[in-house]
């Protein structure tokens, strides 16, 4: 064995030990630095992360407000239903999960992509509904495969219930799953836990009040996202807040009137709008065909939705607010008022109607409508019998520059301001409008013949059923105008009814009482001996009415319109406006039946049934009638 160099060894040990101690010191300080960085400098950041880790807000959805008719009868309420919900952060593979659900026929394959986008736009720990209102069979099918779908849960939630099915769907609207677009216009945290959002009508317009405020319950969760009562000694302060239920809405809708209107219109395409002229309350609002709102809250598949969209009867179109049609003769009472107000007509002078009208110096013939030759008519008779020749002359004398602003005062060409969205203004044609709209110079000229047509509500003029009901209400109230409203009040949490005051709007001005009285006589005349005599027959109240027929296509100069040979879709639209009782009106109605032909035949009986239903309703409602409302006669 070699002699070892003790000194050398000692020197090596000393220097290496010293180096080791130095390295230990450096490493310890590095570690300390890292810890100080985590625990002092970034302490707040990590503290917040750890808070977010352990406490989750579990939303408690507020129950959506009910929708009641004017007497407190429930039109829309809530019911429990099972739905599939997905929590993104607990779903390992979102695409795969959705695909497999589609394979089980629990989702429509076409819905996967939009669903995926909706899910991505929500917070990862929010429970997102992916299929609403499962049938018993679907619940069973999911239950069998439940274990294969991590993050997908079957939950009982409140969903919307429409006890009368599609009744008034265009007024009430419907609710459907909160979509990606909806998220842009709502307060996201406020909707955590909310599955359904109003999409149309009252449900949409009053979304905020109906929705209420969601509450929440903080829950302690472990790393698997499971709710735990406590873990070890760790028991934090958990907060909760109770949801505030949505407000119940009291609609102006009168259930019997609405039902009567729906039934009377039946399968025909068209619309009925009834308004209380004294305050603008919309008593009935019908647009046919409608659709079942329950289908929407259940969730439509792409195919079902496409069917609705592509249906040529346009069930999704709210004809009352968005359907625009020529007014036909329903414009005549206004024309008569204009003539009286501008003093271009002597009400007592009798004009001779031979069934034809020619502008001076023109060979163009304006034909009397279906009612033939009226012989000698004064103004009242002309309204009652809807004499076109009389109004051709009247319009021609008034001129478009006086007609247009005058009828505009009755809301023609502008939005009525009803409290649901989607309303269209129709079209009030003027020379200025023509000039603006048409490109070719020869089209920009306003022809005198167009004024003549205006006098009987044909030509470019377009109105909505809501506008005509509004107009009828103004006629009934002799110029007093109220903004139409579907919601007349609310029922608060204590069950008290709080009615809101009617909102007056600007109506026509400068019309003498005598003029109103004459036109009223004309409209009562229509319902007694005129065009609507058959409708007014046997009424227990005085009916004031006006018929109208809107041409869908123009009959050639020398041809005759024959309903029997014209294809159904090209037949005239049938209009009817009315109010009653004439001496103290409580209801003004407009009825449109698309391609219904002559006004009195199709639309008239519907108006009568609606008015009967409303005025003669003796069934006690849940609520007493509004004491401020006009007393029944």
């Amino acid at each position, binding site marked *: *064995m*070699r002699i*070892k*160099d*003790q000194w*050398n*060894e000692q020197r*090596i*040990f*000393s*220097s*290496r*030990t010293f180096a*080791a*101690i130095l390295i*230990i010191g450096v*490493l*310890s300080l*590095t*570690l*300390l630095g*890292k*810890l*100080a960085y*985590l*625990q*002092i400098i*970034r*302490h707040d*950041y*990590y*503290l917040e*992360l*750890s*808070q977010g*880790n*352990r406490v989750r807000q579990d939303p408690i959805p507020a129950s959506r407000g009910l929708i009641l008719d004017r007497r407190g009868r429930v039109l829309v309420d809530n019911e429990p239903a099972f739905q599939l919900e997905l929590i993104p952060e607990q779903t390992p593979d979102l695409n795969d999960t959705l695909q497999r659900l589609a394979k089980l026929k629990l989702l429509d394959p076409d819905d996967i992509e939009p669903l995926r986008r909706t899910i991505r736009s929500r917070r990862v720990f929010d429970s997102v509904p992916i299929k609403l209102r499962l049938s018993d069979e679907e619940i069973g099918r999911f239950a069998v495969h439940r274990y294969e779908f991590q993050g997908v849960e079957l939950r009982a939630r409140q969903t919307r219930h429409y006890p009368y099915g599609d009744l008034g769907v265009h007024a009430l609207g419907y609710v459907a799953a909160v979509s990606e677009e909806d998220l842009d216009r709502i307060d996201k945290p406020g909707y955590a836990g909310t599955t359904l959002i109003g999409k149309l009508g009252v449900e949409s317009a009053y979304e905020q009040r109906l929705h209420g405020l969601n509450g929440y319950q903080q829950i*302690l*969760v*472990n*790393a*698997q996202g499971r709710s*735990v009562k406590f*873990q*070890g*000694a*760790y028991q*934090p302060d958990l907060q909760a807040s109770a949801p505030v239920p949505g407000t119940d809405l009291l609609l102006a809708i009168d259930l019997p009137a609405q039902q009567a209107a729906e039934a009377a219109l039946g399968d025909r395409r068209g619309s009925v709008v009834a308004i209380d002229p004294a305050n603008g309350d919309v008593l009935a609002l019908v647009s046919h065909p409608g659709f079942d709102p329950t289908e929407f809250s259940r969730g439509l598949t792409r195919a079902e939705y496409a069917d609705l969209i592509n249906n040529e009867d346009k069930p999704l179109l709210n004809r009352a607010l968005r359907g625009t049609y020529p007014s036909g003769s329903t414009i005549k009472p206004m024309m008569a008022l204009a003539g009286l107000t501008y003093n271009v007509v002597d009400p007592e002078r009798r004009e001779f109607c031979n069934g034809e009208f020619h502008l001076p110096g023109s060979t163009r013939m304006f034909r009397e409508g279906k009612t033939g030759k009226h012989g000698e008519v004064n103004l009242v008779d002309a309204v009652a019998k809807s004499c076109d020749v009389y109004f051709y002359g009247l319009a021609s004398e008034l001129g478009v520059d006086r007609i247009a602003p005058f009828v505009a005062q009755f809301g023609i060409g502008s939005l009525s301001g009803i409290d649901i969205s989607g309303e269209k203004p129709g079209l009030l044609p003027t020379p200025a409008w023509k000039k603006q709209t048409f490109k070719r110079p020869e089209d920009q000229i306003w022809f005198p013949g167009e004024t003549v047509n205006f006098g009987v509500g044909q030509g470019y003029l377009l109105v909505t059923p809501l506008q005509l009901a509004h107009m009828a209400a103004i006629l009934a109230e002799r110029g007093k105008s109220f903004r139409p409203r579907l919601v007349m009040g609310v029922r608060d949490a204590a069950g008290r009814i709080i009615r809101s005051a009617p909102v007056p709007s600007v109506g026509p001005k400068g019309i003498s009482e005598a003029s109103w009285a004459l036109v009223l006589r004309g409209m009562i005349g229509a319902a007694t001996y005129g065009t609507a005599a058959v409708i007014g027959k046997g009424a227990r109240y005085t009916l004031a009415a006006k018929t109208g027929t809107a041409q869908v296509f123009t009959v050639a100069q020398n041809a005759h319109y024959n309903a029997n040979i014209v294809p159904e879709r090209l037949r005239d639209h049938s209009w009817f406006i009315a109010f009653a009782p004439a001496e103290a009106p409580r209801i003004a109605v407009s009825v449109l039946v698309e391609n219904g032909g002559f006004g009195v035949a199709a639309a008239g009986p519907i108006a009568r049934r609606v008015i009967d239903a409303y005025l003669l309703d003796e069934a006690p409602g849940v609520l007493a009638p509004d004491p401020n409302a006009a007393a029944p006669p």
Partner: protein
Amino acid sequence: MMVDENRDSAARRTFSATARLLSALKLDGALLVGLGFLAVYALIVQYSASGQSLETILRTLMRIGIGTVAMIALAQSSPNFLRSLAPWLYGIGVVLLLVVDAIGYVGKGAQRWLDVGLIRFQPSEIMKLAVPMLAASFMHERRLPPDWRNLLVLAAIILLPVALVAMQPDLGTAVLIFAAGALVILMAGLQWQVIAGLALAGAGAAVVGWNFLHDYQRQRIRIFLDPQSDPLGSGYHIIQSQIAIGSGGLFGKGWMNGSQAQLNFLPERSTDFIFAVIGEEFGLLGLIVLMLLYLVIVSRAVFLATQASGTFARLLGLSLALTFFVYVFINAGMVSGLVPVVGVPLPLISYGGTSVVTLLAGFGILMGLYSHRKLVNS
């Protein structure tokens, strides 16, 4: 005054009696005190980290008991005996490793355990002691610093078990075994130039070795470089442990009050990641106290090693003392995001495994080396 004097002398008597007992048992008082404090700390933290499991505490106490017996037993052995034991221990260790690799108990997807009737143990733990013992023993008869030929032998001694353990795969233990062996070489005075050269060569080998790593090991290294890249997968450990430590702040959330630990957000909270539990519940102050305890133990251990006599005793002692620090640093470093997660427990604090026994046995060896020193160099 009389009373005071009496009490004083009584205390002194007790003290000297204890000293005599320790001396008879060849144990080191200062090191024992340090280890004792650490054990108490461990029990306090484990109670919280295990979710208030008394069973955990009892098991740990049992392990400490076994470890203490091993420590006392090994403290009695002289350097010469240990030196003669080294080849046998090493040989048995290698055989057992081969057995484990072949027929070993499959746990956690890795073969590490050997079931011997009543107890299961990890043969790799033996190598933590056997490798530095054999390396130090080899250098004992040779001139320091090691020359090239000796270096090759040492490399073989170290790398054979390291490779066997890494194949299990247990990267953490492999790293510790490697550290224990390498520290012998470093303390034996290997020239700095050679160290630098080997480090470069090692870096090159690492690039090659990357291909031999298991996927999960590669993943751990990748995730270490960017934890956020896989927040719910492999990065989850580091993210959650950093949240735990960071949210603890200066004073911590209080004992059994760490939400990360108590609500299971922190994985392996009572084993490899217990350092984060301390950080969360006792804050930076708790961690500093822990680090100071460790440094006291390491300092005392280094002191004992330098006082030992003979090349073997000093090399082995320094290796054991410094490996202890490597242990601490790797665990604390990986939990706080300073080094990759390699699965090294926090020495004497982490629950489970045979590491408590091995560590205490190592300290027993150290005390024995110290107490068997020749007071006068002959």
